[in-house]
């Protein structure tokens, strides 16, 4: 159990929870109290001692309040060349007045959808933080893409966070896409300030039959921010889910990404890069659950670690007994650039069916000396050559992003990071 007295630390959050979804909240609260904040002994949080981090300075957390986001700020934060619709959030809460109306898509506050099966995808009993969010979030957003709707332009979820140390931001997102629908989301958070606030986010995505669902995420929080997120998706037969996750900064970041393949011929793709410097600690936990035959999953995570940063990768592929003819592939490559950087990686396979093809690969290494020499021999100086090679390394993930404006934006950020820092 944690050293945190679990009731105390987040009790004010739990007490001030609104009176919506009472049954779901009660269930989640109980589940949270049973689990407690995971200590470092908990296998799933072995290398990410979030309890200690949270406890460091704060003994009582309170909910962060909404603040006014200037229209100018919203405008200037949108990527160059982006033409899709924008939904704006202030400290996790949806701001309809700043957001665009999206044609053919239903958007509302989650509290208006009283019969929503909250927590049916991101189950509170699986993770203490998901439980905490479900028990105490204030309000969230509900997005529904109807059957056969093809939303050509991506939908940008633009969050502005500004809170003090000891304040918690708890965004809650529910996305559902009907059969044959096609939609892409871009999740981008912007920190206004460098305070040590705590973000505890839950996103539930529900895909129908033959849905094409993409969720891109850029994490570029303030360097003192602590963040835990649970993104979990259920998809049905013939559907495809693609996630691209780019982590660039923060103090301690924990990403739980889970995908449940519930119909045959479904396909899951999970891609990610973490480019870390300073003392940033990023922990990517991914989980693909193959429950049915004839599904496929691909996973590629890459890490570049400089300074005293620490990366954790735990990729789990779970193939259930009935999930014959599964193809599941997973790859994690890491480059350590500094003596003080640490990587803990655990690519994990749990296979209960026999007629499957599953593999994982994992490497930790440095830049190829010969490639470096080759470039230097052609008159490119060493720093530039290194930047070029690292950029190529990261590029394999970046190119999975289909939306051009977002890809260009990430590309620039990555290049800046690699060119200036390394």
């Amino acid at each position, binding site marked *: 159990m944690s050293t945190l007295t679990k009731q105390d630390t987040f009790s004010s959050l739990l007490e001030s929870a609104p009176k919506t979804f009472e049954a779901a909240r009660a269930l989640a609260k109980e589940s949270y109290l049973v689990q407690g904040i995971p200590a470092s002994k908990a*296998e799933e949080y072995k*290398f990410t001692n979030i309890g200690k981090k949270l406890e460091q300075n704060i003994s009582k957390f309170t909910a962060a309040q909404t603040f006014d986001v200037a229209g100018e700020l919203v405008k200037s934060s949108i990527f160059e060349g982006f033409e899709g619709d924008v939904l704006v959030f202030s400290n996790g809460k949806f701001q309809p007045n700043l957001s665009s109306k999206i044609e053919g898509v239903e958007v509302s506050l989650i509290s208006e959808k009283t019969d929503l099966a909250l927590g049916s995808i991101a189950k509170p009993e699986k993770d203490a933080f998901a439980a905490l969010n479900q028990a105490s979030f204030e309000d969230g957003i509900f997005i529904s893409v109807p059957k056969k709707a093809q939303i050509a332009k991506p939908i940008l979820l633009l969050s502005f966070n500004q809170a003090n140390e000891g304040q918690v931001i708890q965004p809650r997102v529910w996305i559902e896409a009907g059969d044959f629908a096609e939609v892409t989301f871009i999740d981008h958070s912007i920190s206004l300030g460098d305070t040590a606030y705590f973000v505890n986010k839950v996103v539930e995505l529900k895909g129908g039959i033959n849905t094409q669902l993409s969720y891109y995420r850029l994490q570029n929080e303030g360097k003192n921010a602590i963040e835990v997120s649970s993104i979990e998706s259920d998809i049905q037969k013939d559907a495809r889910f693609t996630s691209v996750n780019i982590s660039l900064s923060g103090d301690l970041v924990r990403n739980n990404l889970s995908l449940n393949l519930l119909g045959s011929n479904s396909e899951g793709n999970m891609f990610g890069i973490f480019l870390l410097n300073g003392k940033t600690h990023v922990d990517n936990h991914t989980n693909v659950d193959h429950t049915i035959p004839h599904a496929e999953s691909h996973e590629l995570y890459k890490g570049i670690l400089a300074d005293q940063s620490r990366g954790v990768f735990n990729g789990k592929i779970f193939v259930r*007994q009935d999930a*014959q003819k599964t193809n599941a592939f997973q790859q994690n490559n*890491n480059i*350590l*650039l*500094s*003596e003080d*950087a*640490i*990587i*803990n*990686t*655990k*690519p*994990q*396979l*749990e*296979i*209960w*069916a*026999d*007629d*499957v*093809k*599953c*593999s*994982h*690969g*994992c*490497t*930790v*290494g*440095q830049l190829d000396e010969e490639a470096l020499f080759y470039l230097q021999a052609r008159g490119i100086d060493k720093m530039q050559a290194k930047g070029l090679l690292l950029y190529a390394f990261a590029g394999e993930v970046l190119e999975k992003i289909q939306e051009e404006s977002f890809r260009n934006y990430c590309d620039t950020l990555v290049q800046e990071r690699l060119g200036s820092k390394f």
Partner: protein
Amino acid sequence: MSKDNTILEELTSKEYEHGWSVNYEADEAPLGLNEGIIQWISAKKEEPQWLLEWRLKAFKTWQSMKEPEWANVHYPKIDLQALRYYSAPKQKKSAKNLDEVDPELIAIYERLGISLNEQKRLEGIAVDAVLDSVSVATTFRGTLSKLGIIFCSFSEAVKEHPELVKKYLGSVVPMTDNYYAALNSAVFSDGSFCYIPKGVRCPMELSTYFRINAANTGQFERTLIVADDESYVSYLEGCTAPQRDENQLHAAVVEIYAGAQAEVKYSTVQNWFPGDKNGKGGIYNFVTKRGICAGDFSKISWTQVETGSAVTWKYPSCILKGDHSIGEFYSVAVTNNYQQADTGTKMIHIGKNTKSRIVSKGISAGKSQNSYRGQVQVMKRADNARNFSQCDSLLMGDRCGAHTFPYIDINNASAKVEHEATTSKIGEDQIFYCNQRGIATEDAVALIVNGYAKEVLNQLPMEFAVEAQKLLALTLEGSVG
């Protein structure tokens, strides 16, 4: 499919070859575990005071520990108070040489195919035969002692070479290491001790054969191998147990110490009784094995073929402390019926320019669960560490499982670490290819499995390789179609 089933039935109905037991007059400790029992064991073995104190300290440590539950294995809790911690065949007097050993006991080993008669043995293997809690005979001691090599039972080593035992006992696997290691430290009965002096290349394979015979007895042996600087030894371990309905506990500790430029090769063919086809009975094999490459340029190599035991919990590890030291782990783990195996290795890179290699081949059939659990850790000062790991799983039958839990913890930027794992079943195309060339499905499977495990089997000393191949064939014949 029906053909497969008949073949599978044939296979699973195959009796465990070494399932018999013998009645002999035994010297037994009363059931249960307490300080009194430990004193009883220690007195029985006429141990010096320091060892008794060491045992009691371990017992205290153990009492404060909890049974580990993280492994991917499930079994009913063992009632440690219902076990007997010492059982030894009664011998008229202690045997000074083989001629004095009770012929009945020698017969047990003859029946297992282990001849203790030096003339009858193939040249080049010295055997320490351990029955339940004691070592009954050690062969070729004369030949070995001429080279200064000490190879004897652990009890004798305590009496004759206390300084060596005192120096190395618990130096690689401390009593506080884990629950079962602490338990072993408190109650260990016998085992083998081997010391290779500086600069000596051991001319023959040293081998220990463990046999559990008595019922309700736990076997807690302790093996200590010390290879001084520039020496070499290859060590083999074999084990079997009678077929009984209740589960028996085997919690051994193996410690290996390798000095500068020394090389130790440790091979095991583990064939404890795996339980019957309904998962009844079998050995719980909870073993701690660890070697330390203490000196520069030293090397420790583990090779294991795991076919037996109802539950296996075993992680032979290498601590690569000396610069340029090398650790290797080759494993074939086969599980069938209701067997569960959670096995793998730990490679701890501490010295500079250390290298390690892991090749693990898991084969699961029937309703068994086979897990690889490994760790590669590169410490901060371990510059230029290199690791390559390959963990493959082969699945036969749709009710078995194969799991991989590799931990890779890198703390040094100059490390090069690669890990690869695949899981699949034998491809229909591969079988079809063989069929086309006139090879029957049955033989094709054997061929493919053999090829699959070859990388590991090649590492085994010749005599063992033959046994291992036979065991593989026996366990897997016809499991796939």
